[in-house]
């Protein structure tokens, strides 16, 4: 648990200034970490044939106005169709299992489901992460964009 004792107006002012500098960085890093949990789960669920769709996945944090936004998505042109096409799930191999008879692994709703699974309680987790990262996290340039994997490495 972080505790800060300050005495005197100079120390208070210095502490407030460091908070002003560090808090946005900690918030961005916390968003990045929480987004990473959703992204990783999504990478496990996305259908894989030759791996192009999975590799088109991206996670990044961007500045928007006074705050930050974490973006998680898939850039393949057919990503939306595959995401919504629930009718093919019956012929796919369950995510995380080996492909059988040349069938693709994974499932539809490969982004929506991880999001719904992990969104509950996200405010509290973000606050905890931001508190832990206060004074440690670098600025947004220290958070590299992450791309999806082609194949393997579940």
């Amino acid at each position, binding site marked *: 648990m972080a505790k800060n004792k300050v005495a005197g107006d100079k120390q208070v002012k210095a502490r407030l200034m460091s908070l002003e500098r560090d808090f946005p960085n900690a918030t961005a890093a916390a968003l990045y970490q929480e987004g990473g949990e959703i992204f990783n789960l999504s990478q496990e669920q996305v259908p894989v044939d030759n791996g192009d769709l999975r590799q088109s996945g991206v996670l990044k944090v961007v500045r928007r106005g006074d705050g930050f936004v974490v973006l998680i998505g898939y850039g393949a042109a057919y990503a939306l169709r595959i995401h*919504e096409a*629930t*009718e093919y799930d019956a012929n796919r191999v369950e995510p995380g299992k080996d492909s059988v008879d040349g069938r693709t692994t994974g499932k539809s*709703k490969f982004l929506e489901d991880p999001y719904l699974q992990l*969104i*509950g309680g996200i405010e509290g987790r973000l606050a905890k992460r931001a508190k832990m990262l206060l004074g440690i996290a670098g600025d947004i340039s220290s958070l590299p964009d992450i791309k999806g994997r082609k194949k393997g490495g579940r």
Partner: protein
Amino acid sequence: MDYDQDIVDALDATTSLTKGTDLFMGAVRGFSNLIPYKCVFVTASGGGPTRPIKAGLSGVGIQERHASAQIRIRSDAEAVSGSFSVGQSLAREVFDALHFKPVAGYCEWRAVSSAPLYIGQNEEGQHEWSINLDVIFDI
């Protein structure tokens, strides 16, 4: 709660669609002598976790469920003139009939996007749209 059935009933009552003719419950199925090209499918598709909430001064515990339904709209065959625009109009009609228009017994029906998602053409060339609906109710 059979919310997929309730959505089908609501669409049957408030749109040009007719249950069993061009409005179906369950997974998307291909064209057959029973299922036309231009039609709508409603599927219960999971949703988010149940959220415990407290109601009233007594703090009685109730649970709010956030289920989701997927509504898929399919156009006529591409060869049919205006199949895209007719399909799009149908998708918008469905959207307008459901978004923020829950039937009795539900807290809210809320589309995830601001308009039907166009998801392209299927293998047979029909255009398709998808609407994802948050279905919120207490238990």
